[in-house]
């Protein structure tokens, strides 16, 4: 089953909305079948996760998906993006647990998923998901390498620079070029890209 990425209402988002609205377990099972193996695969691409930890985290993430589905809004993001942020937060919490940080703060506290200000919604409209994906594919290898390392491994761009033995400035400019290519216009890019 492949979701129709080109339509604004993709299949996965519909299922996720069903889970949010009526706690539909059948819809959830379908989402699980699709996304749990993807989350596991995603986590295993970045060290240091073995398959057991990746499985555990994928299950943890999917349970969160169930609990939080009510806050999913398909007008604002697609299911895959929303589930990505849940998995990302699970990974952050895992790192904190591993580091035995006593302070009881969860990644979702740091990221504030709740939209406090309804006025924001007007500006935040779902972008055409295909644009980003297609553009990821046309990125030159060295830009793609930096971008994927940051996402898969949860490393900062300066950590990635160190690991690839590249000057920080080189990594920064690869990021900027990649974002430009992907048509992600950042406020700070306009001002700073020249420098």
């Amino acid at each position, binding site marked *: 089953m492949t979701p129709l990425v080109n339509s604004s209402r993709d299949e996965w988002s519909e299922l996720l909305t069903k889970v949010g609205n009526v706690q539909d377990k059948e819809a959830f099972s379908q989402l699980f079948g699709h996304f749990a193996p993807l989350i596991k695969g995603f986590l295993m*691409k970045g060290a240091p996760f073995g398959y057991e930890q990746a499985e555990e985290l994928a299950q943890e993430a999917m349970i969160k998906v169930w609990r939080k589905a009510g806050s999913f809004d398909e007008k604002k993001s*697609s299911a895959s993006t929303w589930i990505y942020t849940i998995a990302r937060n699970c990974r952050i919490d895992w790192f904190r647990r591993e580091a035995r940080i006593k302070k009881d703060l969860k990644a979702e*506290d740091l990221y*504030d998923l709740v939209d406090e200000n309804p006025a924001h919604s007007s500006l935040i409209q779902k972008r055409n998901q295909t644009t980003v994906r297609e553009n990821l594919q046309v990125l030159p290898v060295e830009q793609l390498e930096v*971008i994927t390392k940051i996402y*898969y491994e949860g490393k900062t761009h300066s950590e990635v620079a160190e690991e690839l033995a590249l000057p920080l400035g080189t990594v920064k400019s690869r990021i900027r070029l990649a974002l430009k290519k992907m048509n*992600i216009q950042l406020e700070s890019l306009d001002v700073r890209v020249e420098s």
Partner: protein
Amino acid sequence: MTVQLRPEVQLHPEADLLLDYAAGSLSPALCVSVTAHLHFCDKCRAQDIALSEIGGDLLSSVGPEKMPENALEKVLLSLNSAEISDQAETIPIINEDMKKLPAFMSNIIAEPQFNFLTRSLKVAKIPIGENKYELALHKISAGGKTPKHDHRGLEVTVVLYGSFSDLDGTYNEGDFIIREPGDVHSPVATIDDECICLSVVEAPIRLVGPILRMINPFLSFSPV
């Protein structure tokens, strides 16, 4: 009908910082500072969604790894106990300072304990469980001046309430100000109201007492 608009946020986090944020690699203190900025800045909020979409696309295009046979069954069983338990309980905010701040800040700290650093400057440290950066709230009283100071490590300041100015300009709610080592300034709060800022200070390597460290970013002495 006139709608009062707050001044547009002028200073934004750089692209690579937003990328690290969306990828989930920022240290908790910096993470909070970016979230604080996003609270005020619709544009960066939209960028964050775009950057999270990259994550969503990478997730969708990764090679799936088979889950164990009984994984779904196990998860379905645990859902029953998890059913509605996660509906956010909203705890009313009673602290006067917290009422002025973006609501999400109450996830991070319930009751900031402000201590005087100078007559017009107070600080409340926010424990966040990391040692690379220190997170704190700074409060400058209305019209309060702070002594000239320099910066020893990376420092991020986000205005959460009110505004302050220095020689380079005026900073309003949401502005994300990065200072590098060597920058010198002397902030002053606006006359009519106090100013509350969130600050992230790179923990200095050289040994200074905890109080002296928390004096940054608004002033610092050189205890030579």
